[in-house]
């Protein structure tokens, strides 16, 4: 499937922080002094999960001759917004601020990124929307950051990494969900790890390729955690978007958790519905990568297993290297599903996209 498609909404693009120096104007004196004088070694907070020069992190033809892929607005405009004819694109800034262990530094850097995002990207390009990045190390402060930015309607989501210190359903994180639900902001979970724990139950794998494959486990973990901990019983209007998660692991998870729930539901009495239905109501997934079977007939069987046409959201994952050329969507998707994935589902997931801006 080739774009443009009228009104297509890209739910995952990655403007990049070129280095911590661009954030200095957005830090207060204490943190500016700390970053410039004390933390010189932290001038580049690149996530271990996405080494900037790895093939995963940028398509070769999207990589600039100098600097980081995604760090330049004119290129992003030409290569993503114009090229695919996007109506909107949601910026998910993957900088190390998301993974800083010091809760004060993490919060300060996330605040700076959000302000930098508003000024350097959203103010300059009306097709862009953004996720509020927060530090998970201090949920109360994270909730305050959501409150601070919620009046800016160009922020449409709250962004966290797929692997942190605790499973995301835990009550410790509920202040974040309370604020997000109040402002109709979905929680976006993006691939990546704070490396608080090994990504596998048997330690750290040797290769980035393994690490990336294992991200799918992290998304499955978080899906089950949100359901098992009863987050949606407490916050019935909360939505969760799994971003760059892969998709094909989902049906097997729904089958198994629903079956287990029939056997052990006394353990989690707040779950009143079949877990598969809770998941279909509350979770959305971006479509790059899909990790789909190789041909369209099999792909359509997989979509049938998911059992909902409302869960998938279009994404290019620009500038990450998920597809070649213009093959951003797999062949053989039925036309009515295309309209849902490209336009209707994103609008339903991110209600703020429907607002007409000044």
């Amino acid at each position, binding site marked *: 499937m080739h774009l443009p498609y009228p009104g297509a909404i890209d739910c995952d693009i990655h403007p990049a922080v070129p280095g911590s120096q661009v954030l200095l104007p957005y830090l207060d004196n204490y943190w500016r002094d700390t970053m410039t004088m004390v933390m010189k070694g932290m001038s580049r907070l690149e996530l271990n999960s996405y080494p900037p020069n790895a093939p995963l992190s940028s398509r070769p033809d999207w990589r600039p001759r100098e600097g980081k892929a995604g760090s330049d607005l004119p290129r992003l405009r030409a290569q993503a917004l114009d090229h695919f004819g996007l109506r909107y694109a949601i910026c998910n800034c993957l900088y190390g601020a998301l993974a800083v262990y010091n809760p004060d530094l993490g919060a300060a850097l996330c605040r700076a990124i959000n302000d930098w995002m508003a000024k350097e990207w959203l103010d300059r390009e009306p097709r862009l929307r953004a996720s509020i990045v927060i530090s998970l190390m201090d949920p109360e402060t994270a909730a305050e950051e959501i409150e601070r930015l919620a009046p800016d309607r160009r922020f449409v989501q709250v962004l966290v990494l797929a692997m942190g210190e605790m499973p995301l359903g835990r009550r410790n994180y509920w202040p974040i969900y309370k604020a997000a639900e109040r402002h109709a902001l979905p929680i976006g979970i993006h691939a990546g*790890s704070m490396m608080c724990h090994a990504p596998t139950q048997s330690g750290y794998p040797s290769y980035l390729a393994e690490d990336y494959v294992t991200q799918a486990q992290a998304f499955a973990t978080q899906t089950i955690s949100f359901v098992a901990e009863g987050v949606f019983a407490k916050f019935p209007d909360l939505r969760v978007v799994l971003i760059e998660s892969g998709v094909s692991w989902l049906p097997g998870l729904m089958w198994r958790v629903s079956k287990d729930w029939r056997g052990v539901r006394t353990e989690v009495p707040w779950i009143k519905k079949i877990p598969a239905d809770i998941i279909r109501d509350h979770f959305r997934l971006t479509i790059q990568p899909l990790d789909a079977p190789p041909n369209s007939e099999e792909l359509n069987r997989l979509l049938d*297993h998911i059992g909902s046409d409302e869960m998938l959201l279009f994404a290019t994952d620009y500038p990450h290297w998920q597809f070649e050329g213009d093959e951003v969507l797999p062949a053989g998707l039925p036309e009515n599903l295309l309209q849902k994935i490209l336009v209707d589902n994103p609008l339903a997931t991110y209600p703020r996209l429907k607002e007409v801006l000044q």
Partner: protein
Amino acid sequence: MTTDPAPALAKTRVNHRGVVDCDIHPMPATPTEMAEFLPARWAKHVASYGARVAQPFLGMVPYPRMTAGNGSRLDAFPPGGGLPGSNLPFMREQLLDPLGIEYGILQPLSIGSHTFDQGLGAALCAASNDWQLEKWVKPEPRLKASLCVPQDDPDAAVAEIERHAGNPAFVHVAIPPRATEPLGRRRYWPVYQAAVEHDLPIALHSAAYGPGANSGSGWMSYYIEEHYAFAHSLQSVVTSMVMEGVFDRFPSLKVICVEGGFAWVPALAWRLDKAWHRMRDELPHVKRPPSEYMREHFWYTTQPMEEPEHPRHLLDVIEWIGADRLLFSTDYPHWDFDDPRQAFKVRLSDEMDQAIFRDNAKTLYRLS
């Protein structure tokens, strides 16, 4: 979401041609039964210090399993007392005879694979192996044993394999999918070398213990989460063994994933292929797409059977994996036991039925 109005239930398998059950859990009848198979030094150690593994409690799993007997079928407690799975006559009466189990593979889940004290671990694995022979396999020839080894002490593991090599009572080498390092790492290759030399597959049964948290975000809260995470531990084994090049080094190695279900297998294969294709220059030692190694080297036991809302979806999954890779298992005597007469909610073809319930296991394990 609606479900199929009348699930196409498999016909009751009354005229079946026998079943090989690839996952039966034998238990000691008393806490001291296993100690009789331990050297006095280690029996005394256990009595004083316990068998300490990476979890908060001694001799108890960390997540309450929501049913008595550590997650057992309530009807599996032997009438004469003792834990479910601890009494051979009752196991015959409840499982082997009525369900036509031609062969049953014992999965004793030796704690010796997990203990902090590696000397104790080796002794516990050896005790489990001797106990299986004496208590189960000698009196009941339908049962076959797992050769339990302490994988994180590869020298001791190889020695234990050598001790029993050639004894047809043991059908595979058993190690848990949760170990100190990803199981494809070279640290474990001596174990695979010994397994290949003695023509024994490696069986990885889901484990309640492990040195690391059960998710990349730390410990889950509930058993319903832990139970799903078992499948993740197996996915990590498949990923690590393929990406470390284990099968280029040991082309005849066979690996069985036990008690992790199987619906996750196709998605993992598609994802692995994509990552391998994208990052091939990181993995020059992996010569072929990961899905090809999976197709040739891995088998999966069926329990806990995934139950799609539309039972026919299971046939897609079986087609994607290959019906020749699935091995029927009951998980007796645990609560989520799969009865061979009802486990599949969709009708299998006769060929598929015979392969999954019996012939795949007979071929893999060379059972006559």
